[in-house]
């Protein structure tokens, strides 16, 4: 008897992560402490959580250690084995949380699983048949051989309703019955272990961790169909599986569980292993037969089916590894037990291989029909790095995608088929928002085209042809007609290919086209890869992600070479408001910066701000040298364009149109231009002087600005047309603060966040009380709270119904707010505002807790019914913005969405009325500054293409001289932090908080750029 049993995982995954070394050290250390007779080390098969390997499970406590290094062995022996203390730093933690979990059964990844097929994987020594038998192994074979007739076994299988786990889902019992009924002196049972599906590895794991269950399953199958010989066809890529399976067969033979007269029943059966040689198509059953026969692994037409005419012309049943491993369970526990799990048409459990962008990857066994959402979030722990779930790929190169909007789909044969995908062997590759769906389709098709055996033309030539079209699309030369061609060609290949490979090869293309048609269209119409994958369509990931496509690596390099004026010019080619953007852009460029994989993204925005501030302080000198300013001007034309709304979208549109020679007029309802930039963003983040300066630069190009003019009231669209405006662009924003229905929201002292900011920013004296509660979690909430502090409030509290990490506000703004003393109450939802003498004196809120995951992968806040009260003098509601639909929008008769936003063509921004276009927040809903600017720029391009055939943006670009070399390998170095002014200098004023980089800081930061643009250019030349 041992005091402790320590189970070390010896699956392929853990071995490759070094479990053998860990085991070696453990054994050595045990000897050192003379514990070898007290503590037993056991090698087991795969436990499924390969990413966390090497894993060590310690009994009797059931404590599991993860990610072990050889040197950790000592501390485990000294602390846990000797002193009984847990080694905390080696235990599991929940992804993204600090919560430590010691017990295996409490870890969400394992807790939510139903492990039957995998029950021996990771719990027993896979080489020892005794351990398999001790855990009810071979009871099923005994029952079948001694108590059941072959027909009885088949009936039990048929009643269980089990369907093949290898892909097509054909009822196993029915297959066996066909074979049983075919007369022949020789029959075969074959286990298909040619697991070629990219992303699926359950067969490998079952063979490595529980090969006896496959051997037992095959023996029962052989008895049922009347076979005396079996073969396991396994991939040569799985050497460990081959080794363990060979041993299992040998041991079974030694103790009479294979061979002649098994268990004295008179039944004879033996198994041999056949090893493949690297051909995906051999997973197709008829190709597999050819391969076992020693020929090219080419498929043959069916019928005749293998059950009638299979290996060497004899009746043969071919079953997948997981199917066969289920057989002993069904026979032992009975078909009704099996049917108690899963769904009516897909009973039992299924093993899925979770891979790709998921926190807990690995093998999971769950009842069929479990919703995808549960697998992804509850078991898989969600998507890493704060990214969002985009789609799951099932069925590998024969399957398709389940997009995010179908995340509640139950994982069973029918539901997946309804979505145009298949179960396949259970590969589940999770994609986040960085995956390009066209690229994924192209990848799978490259694979199948490559693996096509070449026997039948639809598959051989058709997949190649389909691939050519996809290549065109990812290289920016596709057309909309190509999409129709894809569909017709795909159907042809599906209907006329000889075997499953060709019949399913177009599935990934058809499925991505069905669910992500907009991405195909973006590649074709906008020449843009939304995920930033297709390198031919972009300069670099940062440029691609920037809504106005600034050449970021270019200007960073120019700064590094001390050519700051050129850097400014390069920015100006894409961005008329760099001083604004350098301060308040949400910098999506930094989100995709590849430097983040090394340490932190390049602080692109801070460098941009440095450039502008430098140029503005050397303006006269710059004017003389400006490359963009000294380009030959484009001749003026007579087309007149009216822009309604002088926010970022309108200003950007005006800038580009003016540069391209159009007569442009902006109509603005407010007394000053700038829209939300002026009225929503506080002075301490964006000084008005800078905004005024950049707007003036735009007006200097010849843009006319009419202030205090409300289109729809002071002047109508018809008037504009009469005045000779040919095109109208509506960019009026979403400037109305959204209200939530709360009792007491009409009390004096209740304000809308946006109105509050607007009044302060317009210079109005706004009085706030001592205690202010701001409801909301976005930038407006943060701006309002910091503004209230500056106006003299003593205590400002933000009340938000979710958690801090869910706040949509900019993280560094939240940080600054905390630093300035703003208090936060998370998981609090307001229920009523109350007061005295019609004046606010408090707010009641409900304490929330996190419930189920919503479809977006965030836990939904649910009420705890605990009510709390907060005293306050003001309540500022900052819970969203909407458009003003009365007036212009309704008078014009534009088609609007349910939420009141203007509906446009995404690529051209045309509205439902000819020659009226629209962009910015009024279309997208409240979004970002650069997003609105991107729409303004898009409108300018659309108009220029309309009048000129194609847009002439290239004419307003100059050429710059800077190094295009990949920098040498870089050491880890964190980004430069800009200085901020001290707290004491922030009170009672609106002085800008964040300072501009010094020249040295800017250059240091530029030096961190990995120059993704250079690599792309080299590729383009090839």
């Amino acid at each position, binding site marked *: 008897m041992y005091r402790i049993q320590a189970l070390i995982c010896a699956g*392929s*995954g853990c*071995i*490759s*992560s070094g479990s053998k070394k860990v085991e070696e050290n453990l054994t050595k250390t045990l000897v050192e402490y003379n514990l070898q007779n007290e503590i037993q080390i056991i090698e087991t098969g795969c436990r499924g*959580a*390969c*990413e966390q*390997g090497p894993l060590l499970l310690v009994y009797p406590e059931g404590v599991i250690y993860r990610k072990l290094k050889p040197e950790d062995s000592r501390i485990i022996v000294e602390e846990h084995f000797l002193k009984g203390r847990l080694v905390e730093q080696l235990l599991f933690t929940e992804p993204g949380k600090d919560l430590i979990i010691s017990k295996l059964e409490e870890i969400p990844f394992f807790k939510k699983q139903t492990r039957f097929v995998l029950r021996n994987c990771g719990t027993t020594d896979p080489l020892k048949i005794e351990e398999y038998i001790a855990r009810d192994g071979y009871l099923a074979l005994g029952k079948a051989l001694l108590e059941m007739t072959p027909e009885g076994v088949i009936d039990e299988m048929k009643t269980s309703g089990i369907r093949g786990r290898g892909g097509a889902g054909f009822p196993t019992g029915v297959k066996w019955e066909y074979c049983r009924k075919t007369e022949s002196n020789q029959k075969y049972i074959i286990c298909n272990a040619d*697991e*070629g*599906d*990219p*992303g*699926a*590895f359950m*067969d*490998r794991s079952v063979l490595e961790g529980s090969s006896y269950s496959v051997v037992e399953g095959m023996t029962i199958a052989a008895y049922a169909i009347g076979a005396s010989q079996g073969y396991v066809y396994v991939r*040569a*890529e*799985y*050497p460990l599986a081959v080794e363990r399976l060979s041993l299992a067969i040998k041991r079974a033979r030694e103790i009479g569980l294979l061979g002649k007269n098994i268990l004295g029943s008179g039944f004879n059966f033996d198994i041999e292993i*056949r*090893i*493949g*040689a*690297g*051909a*995906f198509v051999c997973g197709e059953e008829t190709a597999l037969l050819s*391969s*076992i026969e*020693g*020929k*090219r*692994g*080419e498929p043959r037409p069916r019928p005749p089916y293998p059950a009638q005419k299979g290996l060497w012309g004899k009746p043969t049943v071919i079953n997948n590894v997981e199917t066969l491993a289920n057989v002993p369970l069904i026979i032992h526990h009975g078909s009704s037990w099996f049917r108690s799990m899963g769904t009516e048409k897909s009973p039992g459990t299924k093993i899925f*291989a*979770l*891979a*790709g*962008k998921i926190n807990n*990857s*690995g093998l999971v066994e769950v009842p069929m029909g479990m919703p995808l959402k549960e697998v992804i979030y509850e078991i898989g722990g969600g998507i890493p790095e704060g990214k969002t779930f985009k789609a799951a*790929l099932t069925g*590998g190169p024969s399957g398709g995608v389940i997009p995010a909007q179908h995340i509640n789909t139950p994982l069973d044969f029918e539901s997946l088929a309804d979505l145009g995908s298949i179960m396949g062997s259970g590969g589940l*590759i999770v*994609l986040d928002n960085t*995956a390009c769906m066209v690229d*994924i389709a192209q*990848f*799978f098709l490259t*694979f199948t085209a490559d*693996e096509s*055996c070449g026997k039948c033309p639809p598959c051989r030539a058709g997949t190649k042809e389909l691939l050519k079209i996809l290549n065109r699309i990812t290289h920016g030369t596709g057309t909309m007609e190509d999409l129709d061609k894809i569909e017709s060609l795909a159907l042809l290949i599906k209907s006329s290919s000889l075997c499953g490979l060709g019949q399913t090869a177009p599935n990934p293309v058809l499925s991505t086209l069905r669910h992500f048609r907009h991405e195909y269209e973006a590649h074709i119409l906008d020449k843009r890869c939304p995920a930033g994958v297709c390198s031919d369509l972009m300069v670099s990931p940062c440029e691609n992600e920037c809504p106005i496509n600034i050449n970021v690596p270019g200007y960073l390099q120019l700064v590094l070479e001390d050519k700051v004026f050129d850097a400014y010019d390069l920015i100006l080619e894409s961005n008329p408001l760099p001083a604004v953007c350098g301060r308040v852009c949400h910098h999506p460029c930094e989100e995709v910066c590849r430097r983040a994989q090394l340490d932190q993204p390049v602080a692109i925005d801070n460098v941009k701000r440095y450039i502008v501030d430098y140029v503005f302080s050397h303006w006269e000198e710059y004017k003389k040298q400006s490359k963009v300013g000294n380009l030959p001007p484009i001749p003026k034309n007579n087309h007149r364009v009216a822009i309604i709304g002088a926010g970022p979208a309108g200003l950007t549109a005006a800038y580009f149109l003016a540069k391209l020679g159009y007569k442009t007029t902006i109509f603005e309802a407010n007394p000053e231009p700038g829209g939300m930039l002026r009225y929503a963003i506080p002075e301490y983040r964006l000084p008005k002087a800078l905004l005024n300066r950049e707007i003036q630069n735009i007006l200097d190009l010849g843009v006319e600005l009419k202030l205090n003019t409300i289109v729809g009231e002071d002047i109508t669209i018809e008037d504009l047309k009469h005045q000779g405006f040919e095109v109208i662009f509506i960019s009026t924003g979403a400037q109305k603060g959204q209200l939530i229905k709360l009792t007491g929201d009409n009390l004096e002292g209740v304000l809308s966040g946006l109105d509050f900011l607007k009044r302060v920013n317009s210079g109005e004296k706004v009085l706030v009380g001592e205690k202010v509660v701001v409801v909301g979690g976005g930038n407006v909430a943060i701006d309002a709270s910091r503004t209230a502090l500056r106006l003299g409030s003593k205590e400002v509290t933000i009340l938000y119904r979710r958690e801090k990490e869910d706040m949509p506000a900019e993280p560094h703004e939240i940080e600054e707010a905390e630093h300035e003393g703003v208090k936060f109450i998370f998981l609090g939802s307001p229920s009523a505002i109350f007061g005295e003498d019609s004046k606010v004196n408090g707010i009641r809120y409900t304490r929330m807790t996190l419930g189920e995951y919503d479809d977006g992968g965030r836990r939904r806040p649910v009420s705890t019914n605990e009510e709390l009260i907060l005293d306050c003098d003001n309540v500022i509601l900052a819970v969203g913005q909407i458009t003003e639909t009365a007036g212009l929008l309704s008078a014009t008769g534009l088609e609007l969405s349910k939420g009141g936003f203007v509906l446009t063509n995404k690529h051209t921004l045309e509205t439902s009325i000819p020659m009226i276009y629209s962009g910015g927040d009024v279309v997208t809903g409240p979004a970002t500054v650069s997003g609105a600017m991107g729409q303004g720029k898009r409108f300018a391009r659309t108009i220029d293409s309309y009048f000129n055939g194609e847009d002439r943006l290239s004419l307003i670009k100059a050429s710059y001289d800077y190094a295009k070399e990949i920098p040498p390998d870089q050491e880890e170095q964190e980004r430069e932090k800009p200085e901020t002014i001290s707290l004491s200098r922030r009170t009672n004023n609106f002085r800008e908080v964040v300072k501009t980089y010094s020249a040295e800081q800017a250059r240091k930061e530029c030096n961190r750029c990995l120059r993704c643009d250079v690599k792309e250019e080299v590729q383009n030349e090839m």
Partner: protein
Amino acid sequence: MKCEETLYSKEILGLIEKYKATGEPLLTLLHEIQDLHPDNHLPATALKLISKELKMPVSTLYSTVSFYSMFSLKPRGRHIVRVCSSPPCKLDGTDVVLEALEKRLGIGVGETTPDRNFTLEEQSCLGVCSLSPVVMIDEDVFGNVTPQRLPVILESYEED
């Protein structure tokens, strides 16, 4: 040279005899003969010998051998470096690893280093998807490979 060739033929004949005696399958025989050759491939001499002994046309043998990606008719290195190029690996940076390997070994996919030590191949799924990107050298699997880890990984396979 002559002597070595005779020795090699003898060893092949030995394997073929075993094959005839036990009814070993053809693919297994081909794997074993390929492993026997120091250059990790199936040379024409070997195919001719098999053809003669098994009374099987060389064309049939050739058709089988050329079908499977793991058999090579060209001489290869002592160690085969296989880079998994299936989607989970691709999502996690196979391209970067492959590029680094090409740079380090100075060869492209399908090529062999001049010292005949390494051949670089792309490989469909190796089934260790949780540890993507994955590289397999001979029969050893390496997970979570980064360009930085490559020197250490390759070291033990490098000739002194």
